[in-house]
């Protein structure tokens, strides 16, 4: 299997274009002229060119009692790819993370002709699982002395790709459009924090109300996401943590599968595993409130077992909650009222720290 050049695929850490200044060589007039042109005129020219924008749709759930945002998703294929490849935003609704449903389906439908290139991460996992199963069986045989150890290991080395056993499914005919291409049925769902970051901080996404088709502005979006406007609203607390890690260069993604609020990747899921699992804890100025939300030790060891088991380190991210917030604050002023403080927790094993 050919290794993909990840750096070429995932070029930008954020979905915003940058125009770097050329190197300036002072004794070369041409270089100086070009530098001045880049410095002075490009911003003007750039003014005519609109920044690449993405579109998302917001679904509002309403019943007689309540009304809340149920999902924010991107459905254009180009936008999905753009947001995933630059900063790893969102999750494919039919995929594990990277929206690859279309690729996988196309592969499945056209497997015989072999026209589709690329490998989805789900396939990599399937392959690895098959290889491991084989290894375990071989090891079991070796331990019972039936097959020599070397033969067992050899077998693992020569493990071939698992044979695809999926046959045609009854619904397959409906998966293609009139031109015979796979229909694009997958969406990219954004967490509220991701959506707000893209809309407010980067200003590169237009969110529309799914029913009315109206543009959802940033203040309106904020009102929908934190309707009670209380200083310790879970959206704003989590957003503060999200924004903090994003702004310091971490790729931050939802971590609920690991029992934490967020996962921190140094660059992104294709490059390396997440190093840290973050749990966000509100920190009140009133110490009695902090006492009230104190956790038991069993909680700490439980979370640590899970997080440590997948080789991550637990981070407790305390977000200092202001006593009151004013509706007339700008978002920036609002965010600046919060403050972040972090601790890391790891299980410590004496016998492994002795020598």
């Amino acid at each position, binding site marked *: 299997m050919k290794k993909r050049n990840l*750096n*070429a695929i995932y*070029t930008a*850490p*954020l979905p*915003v*274009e*940058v125009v*770097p200044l050329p190197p300036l060589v002072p004794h070369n007039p041409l270089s100086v002229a070009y530098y001045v042109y880049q410095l002075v005129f*490009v911003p003007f020219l*750039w*003014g005519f060119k*609109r920044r690449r924008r993405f579109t998302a749709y917001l679904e509002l759930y309403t019943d007689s009692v309540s009304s809340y945002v149920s999902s924010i998703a991107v459905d254009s294929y180009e936008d999905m790819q753009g947001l995933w490849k630059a900063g790893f935003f969102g999750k494919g609704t039919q995929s*594990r*993370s*990277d929206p690859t449903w279309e690729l996988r389906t196309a592969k499945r439908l056209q497997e015989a002709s072999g026209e589709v290139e690329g490998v989805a991460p789900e396939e990599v*996992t399937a392959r*690895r699982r098959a*290889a*491991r199963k084989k290894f*375990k069986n071989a090891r079991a045989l070796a331990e019972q002395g039936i097959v020599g150890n070397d033969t067992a290991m050899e077998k693992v080395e020569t493990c071939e790709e698992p044979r695809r056993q999926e046959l045609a499914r009854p619904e397959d005919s409906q998966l293609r459009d009139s031109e015979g291409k796979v229909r694009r049925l997958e969406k990219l769902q954004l967490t509220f924090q991701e959506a707000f970051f893209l809309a*407010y*901080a*980067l*200003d590169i996404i237009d969110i529309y109300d799914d029913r009315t088709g109206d543009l959802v502005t*940033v*203040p309106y979006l904020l009102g929908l996401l934190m309707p009670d406007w209380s200083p310790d609203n879970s959206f704003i607390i989590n957003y*503060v943590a999200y924004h903090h890690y994003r*702004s*310091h*260069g971490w790729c931050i993604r939802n971590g609920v*599968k*690991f029992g934490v609020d967020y996962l921190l990747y140094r*660059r992104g899921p294709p490059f390396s*595993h*997440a*190093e840290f699992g973050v749990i966000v*804890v509100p920190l009140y100025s009133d*110490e009695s409130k*902090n006492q009230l939300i*104190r956790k*038991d*030790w*069993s909680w*700490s*060891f439980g979370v*640590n077992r899970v997080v440590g088991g997948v080789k991550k380190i637990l981070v407790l991210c305390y977000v200092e909650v202001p006593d009151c917030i004013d509706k007339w604050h*700008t*978002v920036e002023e609002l965010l*600046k009222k*919060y*403050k*972040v403080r*972090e*601790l*890391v927790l790891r*299980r410590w*094993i*004496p016998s492994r720290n*002795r020598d």
Partner: protein
Amino acid sequence: MDDLDKDYDNVPATQGRGEQEDAESDDEQQDWRMLTAMGSNRRSLPKRGEKEYEPTGSSSDRNNLDESRQAMYIALNGERRHTSKVHISGIWYPHLRKAKVLVARGPHFRSIGKADSNGVIWLLPEEVIYLMERGSMSLYNAHGDTNISLQGCYAACLGSCQGHERYLVYAHLKRLGFIVQRAASFDGYGEEETVQKPTSNRARKLWNFLVQKFASFCIGLRCVFSKKIPSFGPIVCGGVWRSYDSIYRALQIIPFYSHRDSIVTPKSTTVPFRVAYNIWKPRPSFKKSNPGEPDFRVVVVNAQKDRMPTLAQADALFSTLPTAHGSTSTSQQRLRDGYKNVIIGVVDCGIISFVKYGDVSFGDERIFERAANNTTKKYRPMKK
């Protein structure tokens, strides 16, 4: 929301196994047959079942277990002896809460006991119980005529150990080979030895302030030109951005506690969140008189009585500690172990687990510079 399966799977099978064994090494079974001549070239004990083929339930597995158990009984039945050469005897003085050593002999005194100006060595209560439990010591009452039993020793000494939990942790670490000594804050209030010097000065703060103001002015100007009202954002507004570095810097608006400009004054710690023991890894060069910086500092907590510390309690504890690494530490080290760290020994009905608390600040580490640089460079194909 992606990779539960992936993360388990990416660990190669062999490595995964090793990892698990490491994690379980605490509660591994002992093969007692090593003490006897029995089963010298047998197969190893069956592992506790976790995989589909372990244990196999075969008769050979059962024989192995039976033999090992038998060997354990033989070992336990054996008569235990101590050489009189290194046997320690001492006298317990209840009012001093210390034991006076009559004859100091043996290797224990390299890390245990404290000599006064007359050259008499005194033992702390936990040291006495520990030595008594090992069978290395006999203790007499103040008149020097009655031999105190182990039970009597517990009754006399445990009350001066600041809680049963502390003794359990002390003995646990001692048996594992660590050198354990009481910390200065063992029974006092936050009287740790180290006081942090303020690390920042006013000029630096002023400079940071000016840079910040100038940056926000520039961003505001940029936003005016791109006809966006900055009141509800954006931070990264339209117009030309020259580098991801500048975008990240503009995004950094959330205040955070930094190690760079925080002035740490020792706060008074609260019970039980204060350092009880300093511990050193076993080393032959250890000197009681000049122990050097401890390798770890241990706080002891009773899980039945106390919950996790609040940030204020943890903060007070950290304020009494020195920084963990020198100036040579890498960003990775600072994030994983913390700028300062402390071990908390949690005792739950006699079961001891340890957790390491680290004081970190992700905002201090410039991950974004790397993230930005990775992408502005020309791409090279990855090395095989």
